[in-house]
């Protein structure tokens, strides 16, 4: 493909990035006025920005690695995926700490945790720069190689001078981008809206590009994944790479996976996007599964592409790192090849941009500024230009870093693959994990331990991973084979005789082993300074202190408010400083004209400065203007205890108030229930009186008529007297039922339990209602050949239940057509009795109501009425026998009442 086309496309793509970043920055500025949400306040953008983890290494390198070593490439994606659920604990804590203390980078974090120590900040910065520059340089290399591949040049030859090398110009362009969007603001803790938006966009581009190539290779060149793996398995070399055979040790898997867990958090670029640019802690919730999903998608087609390349090209010596590009290119898909190239470009550029931004902040805030602010003469010279100086330092740092990386790429990086350099960087960054993890979990973790661990760990890393790369150019071959001075136990790749691991695993094992050891040993044996201890408590217990910077100010001394104001003005300008101070005064209800600052204000000023120039520098600045009294550990503990006690009291109060609220609610609920019960009782009474009055009315009226009229004919007299008798019986029944029900409800009902045969009880009940049934010409059928069914029950009560159900059934059947079937079935340890009629049926909506007292089905008025208590009592009796009763019915289709009782086991 024509070089010019590719250059134009690359420029267009970078131009698009500039455009997106500009747009996002402008949008943010207008948003502040309109009080709308920032674009970054969105878990999806956050998760996408985390995908800056996937560099050119992922894009090109994992295919190369998969082609030579099979599934080994997966380990660095499995690590972050496995560890993602832990982010809620670890990452959230780190984010909270950084927000409160305005921490700007991983170097600042370690320096701040261990007594705001300047030396530690420098040390971490140096480790980062040393570990990351090769990493940046291979991104440049990947871009240059992909350019060469696409344009058809031989990738082996370098442009003779950097002036004719496109990679050089791309480096400059990236520098310009990073300077423009990475150093807009002085306060490094503020979010880089444009930068992060562009990064999220790049993550999308590389994902789409890689998936497109993957789909093309899998389904375009081959017949789906099945086809590729089928063919690959026929080639012995490829088949071997799919299994854990010789050459794949599970120890390597373990160490690679382990290594990628701290890398995802502590690589400067990851720390930048995950912590510094984080808008809301709760975005972690989504990112915890979105990011692993991204990793899954971007690794999905690695194996198909790798095998596809191997199968397609055979052993033509084509570098497998370039398959993503060469496969579409060689098969005539120029557009797709260009897309793949842009994807690779986006993977490389996003890494370079974020990494250099993060490193530049480290260099300015942890190396240059502490040095500068401890020199009053320099400070004087700069005067109000300090903030500009900080920004220029960062810009210079960005350019320097990029140029060094470029130089490294031209002169050194040729000798390594993408993957090996990446792993070396991972191993360097892993050295921070003891100091960081220990720092947020272990209050006794001390400065001396952190420094010792970092130095020793990094030294071992250097000796085991970097030194061998200098052989044989700078160092003799014998170092590797015989060890220094012939001491074979010091061989760089087999320390103390450990020679069964690959170089990376070997290095990680020993460096972390000694790093952790030294950290713990140093922390235990060297006492913490007061400041060290103070910071330890603030970090470890960060969730217990809401705003430690103001409420638990640990500072003792004298400094005028004016001096602090001047200090702020130096870095933030008069306007912003005034606003900040006023905001602080409002929040803490301070009287404006104090001449001496209280500890809260001093700490506040220091934290503000820390956000701009780093923790250590801020410390130096503030102590330079304040007459500070030495503060003892006891005093710190006292101050912290007071604040903790305050919080405890607060919590206690809150708890009490909650309890009270609960109690009130309970009380009102009880009251409500009592009211309800009272209402129910009223209703019961009024229904009862109504039910009693009705038969009495008939009895009284009819007897009065008979009494006053001697001339009533015999037939009428007989009818009236018969009615009086029936109504008297009804009254008696009603009173008995009310008394029954009362006994059930008050729990005074005693059952006279005895062993019975249920079959016989049913037979008796059917006989007892035979008269009633035959009066209506209703047939009742009970199959007497059913099992005898032994139960333990109260015979009279059971009869009551059966007679009630039977007479109900008879009552609701039409005369002459009625047919009632009683069934008895045994099911496991229970027996079921059902009374089935072909009467009027009951609306399902009423099924639960009919078992309530005084509920009467409003039916044909010609039917004789009951008391409305029968089913309520029936239900109580069955429940008292540990059974249950149920109804199944539809209007017009009859009803089935079924009750269950437990069988007697004896």
């Amino acid at each position, binding site marked *: 493909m024509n070089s010019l086309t590719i250059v134009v496309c690359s420029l267009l793509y970078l131009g698009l990035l500039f455009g997106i970043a500009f747009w996002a920055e402008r949008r943010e500025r207008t948003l502040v006025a309109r009080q709308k949400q920032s674009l970054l306040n969105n878990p999806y953008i956050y998760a996408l920005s985390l995908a800056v983890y996937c560099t050119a290494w992922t894009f090109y390198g994992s295919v190369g690695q998969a082609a030579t070593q099979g599934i080994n490439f997966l380990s660095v994606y499995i690590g972050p995926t496995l560890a993602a659920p832990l982010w809620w604990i670890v990452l959230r804590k780190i984010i909270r700490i950084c927000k409160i203390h305005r921490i700007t980078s991983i170097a600042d974090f370690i320096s701040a945790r261990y007594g705001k120590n300047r030396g530690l900040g420098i040390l971490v910065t140096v480790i980062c720069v040393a570990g990351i520059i090769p990493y940046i340089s291979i991104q440049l290399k990947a871009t240059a190689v992909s350019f060469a591949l696409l344009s058809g040049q031989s990738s082996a030859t370098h442009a003779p001078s950097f002036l004719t090398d496109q990679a050089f110009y791309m480096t400059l362009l990236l520098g310009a981008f990073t300077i423009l969007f990475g150093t807009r603001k002085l306060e490094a803790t503020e979010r880089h809206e444009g930068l992060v938006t562009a990064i999220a966009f790049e993550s999308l581009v590389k994902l789409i590009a890689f998936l497109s190539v993957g789909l093309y290779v899998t389904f375009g060149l081959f017949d789906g994944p099945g086809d590729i793996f089928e063919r690959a398995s026929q080639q012995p070399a490829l088949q071997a790479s799919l299994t854990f055979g010789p050459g794949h040790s599970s120890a390597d898997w373990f160490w690679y996976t382990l290594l990628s867990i701290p890398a995802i958090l502590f690589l400067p670029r990851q720390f930048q996007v995950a912590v510094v640019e984080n808008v809301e802690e709760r975005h972690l919730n989504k990112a915890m599964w979105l990011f692993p999903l991204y990793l899954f998608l971007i690794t999905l087609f690695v194996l198909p592409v790798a095998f596809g390349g191997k199968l397609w090209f055979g052993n033509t010596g084509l570098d497998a790192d370039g398959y993503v590009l060469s496969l579409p290119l060689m098969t005539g898909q120029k557009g797709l090849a260009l897309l793949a190239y842009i994807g690779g470009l986006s993977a490389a550029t996003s890494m370079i941009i974020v990494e250099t931004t993060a490193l530049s902040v480290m260099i300015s805030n942890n190396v240059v500024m502490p040095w500068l602010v401890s020199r009053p003469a320099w400070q004087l010279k700069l005067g109000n230009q300090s903030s500009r100086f900080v920004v220029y330092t960062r810009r210079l740092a960005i350019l320097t870093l990029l140029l060094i990386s470029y130089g490294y790429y031209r002169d050194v990086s040729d000798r390594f693959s993408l993957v090996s350099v990446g792993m070396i960087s991972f191993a360097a960054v892993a050295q921070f994990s003891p100091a960081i993890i220990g720092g947020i979990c272990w209050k006794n973790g001390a400065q001396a331990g952190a420094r010792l661990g970092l130095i020793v760990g990094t030294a071992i890393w250097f000796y085991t991973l970097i030194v061998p790369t200098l052989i044989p150019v700078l160092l003799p071959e014998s170092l590797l084979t015989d060890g220094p001075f012939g001491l074979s136990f010091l061989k760089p790749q087999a320390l103390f005789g450990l020679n069964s691991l690959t170089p990376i695993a070997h290095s990680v094992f020993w460096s972390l082993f000694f790093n952790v050891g030294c950290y713990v040993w140093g922390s235990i044996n060297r006492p913490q300074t007061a400041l060290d201890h103070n910071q330890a408590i603030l970090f470890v217990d960060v969730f217990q202190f809401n705003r430690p910077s103001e409420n638990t100010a640990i500072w003792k001394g004298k400094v005028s408010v004016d001096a602090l104001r001047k200090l702020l003005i130096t870095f933030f300008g008069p306007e912003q400083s005034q606003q900040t101070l006023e905001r602080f005064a409002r929040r803490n209800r301070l009287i404006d004209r104090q001449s001496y600052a209280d500890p809260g204000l001093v700490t506040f000023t220091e934290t503000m400065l820390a956000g701009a120039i780093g923790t250590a520098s801020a410390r130096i600045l503030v102590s330079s203007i304040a007459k500070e009294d030495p503060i003892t550990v006891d005093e710190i503990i006292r101050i912290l205890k007071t604040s903790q006690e305050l919080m405890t009291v607060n919590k206690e109060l809150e708890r009490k108030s909650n309890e009270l609220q609960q109690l009130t609610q309970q009380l009102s609920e009880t009251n409500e229930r009592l009211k309800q019960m009272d209402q129910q009782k009223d209703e019961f009474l*009024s229904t009862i*009186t*109504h039910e009693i*009055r*009705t*038969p*009495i*009315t*008939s*009895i*009284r*009226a*009819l007897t*009065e*008529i008979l009494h*006053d*009229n001697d001339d009533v004919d015999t037939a*009428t007299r007989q*009818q*009236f007297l018969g*009615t009086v008798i*029936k*109504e008297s019986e009804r009254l008696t029944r009603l009173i008995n039922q009310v008394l029954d029900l009362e006994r059930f409800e008050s729990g005074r009902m005693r059952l006279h339990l005895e062993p019975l045969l249920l079959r016989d009880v049913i037979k008796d009940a059917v006989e007892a209602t035979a008269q009633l049934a035959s009066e209506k010409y209703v047939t009742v059928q009970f199959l007497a050949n059913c099992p005898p069914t032994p139960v333990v029950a109260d015979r009279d009560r059971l009869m009551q239940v059966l007679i009630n159900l039977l007479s109900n059934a008879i009552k609701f059947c039409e005369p002459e057509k009625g047919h009632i079937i009683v069934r008895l079935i045994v099911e496991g340890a229970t027996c079921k009795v059902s009374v089935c009629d072909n009467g009027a049926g009951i609306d399902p909506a009423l099924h639960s109501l009919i078992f309530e007292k005084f509920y009467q089905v*409003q039916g044909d*008025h*010609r039917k004789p*009425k009951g008391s409305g208590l029968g089913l309520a009592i029936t239900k109580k009796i069955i429940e008292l026998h540990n059974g249950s009763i149920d109804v199944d019915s539809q209007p017009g289709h009859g009803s089935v009442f079924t009750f269950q009782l437990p069988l007697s086991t004896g």
Partner: protein
Amino acid sequence: MANVLIADDEPNILLSLEFLMKKEGHKVFIARDGGEAYELLQHHKPDLLMLDIMMPRMNGLELCKYVKSTDGFQHSKIIILSAKGKEIDIQRGYESGADLYVAKPFSTRDLVAKVNQLLSA
């Protein structure tokens, strides 16, 4: 002689009321629920209605309100006969337009006397 409509869902109460009214020489119509009473009303325009309150389909108070608010029933007198005997129930009965509220159980002699009084007024 007057037309008397008696509505109650208790057949045994109907039995005694029917006897009493017939004995006084009135023409008696029997309704076993509110709906039946409503239909009989339309045809017979009774001079006296004896209504129970709690009846299926249409209750006595509704019937009462209907009669008192409809043309053609200006002459109709209404007695409510109910087992509900509380102040509030009696008040509601009169509010619905009843001329007399009699609580069950009642004295037959008193009831007959009151009916005659109402009809002659």
